[in-house]
């Protein structure tokens, strides 16, 4: 009984320690923020047209939504091996060529995130089982591989556009 209780406590402590360490690293080193916006054309007082991004309001099928993820280094050391994964939202269709991310290698998946490849490498099997190039609207997941170290205090931004089906 004594031994087993001690073991239990030790196990609990180690679990807590490990867990809290992870939480601390995840919670504190990098802050990840996701926003969804729509772009509307606004004609200014000077008559010039400009595109203005506002939070998604009236959202109907066909509306193109811009999803932007910002990541910021909150610690005093550089952060590396940054990979951002974002499934294409439900009831949405990825817009071809819309993914952006400075210093990123952008990959896509057409199988729910099991495998990733560059846009031109992706294929879908047609009805006869033959592979054909995948269409942008068939993408299920997007992955950004940040090729640099993120210096302390610095932040990066990635995103994409998807239309509501």
């Amino acid at each position, binding site marked *: 009984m004594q031994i087993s209780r001690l073991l239990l406590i030790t196990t609990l402590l180690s679990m807590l320690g490990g867990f809290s360490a992870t939480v601390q*690293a*995840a919670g504190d080193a990098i802050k990840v923020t996701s926003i969804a916006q729509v772009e509307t054309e606004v004609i200014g007082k000077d008559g010039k047209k400009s595109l203005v991004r506002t939070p998604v309001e*009236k959202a109907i099928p066909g509306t193109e939504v811009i999803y932007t993820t910002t990541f910021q280094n909150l610690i005093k050391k550089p952060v590396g091996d940054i990979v951002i994964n*974002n499934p294409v939202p439900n009831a949405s269709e990825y817009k071809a060529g819309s993914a952006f991310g400075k210093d990123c290698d952008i990959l896509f998946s057409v199988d729910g995130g099991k495998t990733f490849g560059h846009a031109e490498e992706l294929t879908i099997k047609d009805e006869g089982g033959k592979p054909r190039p995948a269409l942008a609207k068939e993408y299920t997941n997007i992955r950004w591989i940040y090729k640099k170290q993120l210096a302390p205090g610095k932040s990066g931004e990635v995103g994409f556009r998807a239309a509501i089906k």
Partner: protein
Amino acid sequence: MHPAEIKKICSRAINPGISVCLLLILPQIGWAAGTPSGTSISNSATLTYSVGAGPTNTATSNAVSFIVDKKVNLLVTEVSGSPTSVGIGQTGAVTTFSVINLGNDPQGFALAAALAAGNPASGGTPPFTTNDFSATGLQVFADSNGNGVYDAGVDTATSIPTLAADASQKVFIVADIPGTAAAGQQSVVSLTATAVVPITMAPLSQTPGVDTPGVDVVFADGAGVTDAALDAKYSAYGAYLVNGVNVTLTKTVASIVDPNGTAVVMPKAVITYQIDVDLSGSGTADNLVITDPLPANTTYLANSISITCISGTYAGGGACGVGTISAPQPPVSKGDLDTDGDYADFNFTSANAVTVTLGNATSPAKSIITFKATIN
């Protein structure tokens, strides 16, 4: 997969007793039904990273989400793309329209039939532009039993109580043709469908102002022939065309040349008479023969008959040949005998008259006959 639509197109009998039907198998266009309103769309990004030689850590973004709003959109089209052929005094003549729900939710549709304003019908699209007379007693019925044709006494609903997203239903305007209408005249009518709350048929209004947390109503329709964009309405023209062909003959004096080379009406002056033969309306004038008695106190100038075939489709043998005239032809001189096979003569078929046979001419068709006579 959408099932193929089998469409039967019949053209009204050109010659009595003969009608031409075409069976067309058309692939149905698949409209994107759209995500139903109320659907929550959510996005969240996951980020993995490491610090120095440390383990891989995971950070997850906030989940950003919004609710899909109600898109109200519809389209009304006239189904056949051509006027409904009707007889003078016909009752219960039907034009067929299709109402399509292009929104993302089931929707009810109120229906209204109206006579087009003006001639040409303002904003009309061919062939629904010419508006010569007014059909009467307009009624509108939905194709309640869904068989695509109007069944009097069966299709009695005057609105569409509910139509699923992406679905379409036929709608009929039923009207009477007054006895005063003439062959070739057309009456343009319009069908306006208005999206309403299903079943209760209460009006729909757009959710005003800024976004609400719940489902907002957003109008997304285009402008129809008599309605504006973004008004939850759509309208289209159809028409009734009185069948039968109108043959209009217009005789004019094309020129007068007197012996002095001027245009004085005097003895020995040569008058060129011109008869414009104009077929309007729809259908075929069979065995069309133009006979023009020579005016009094004139003498026919031998071999002066000439015919200019401008348009029309001809059959059965005539001065404009057989087939469709796609471009105006140059004038062709004709002999005076009825045995020379040129379908024109003087003083043979009919005494002291010019006779030109055009055969079976299908409207629209136009030709010009000229001949010369000398003043006695």
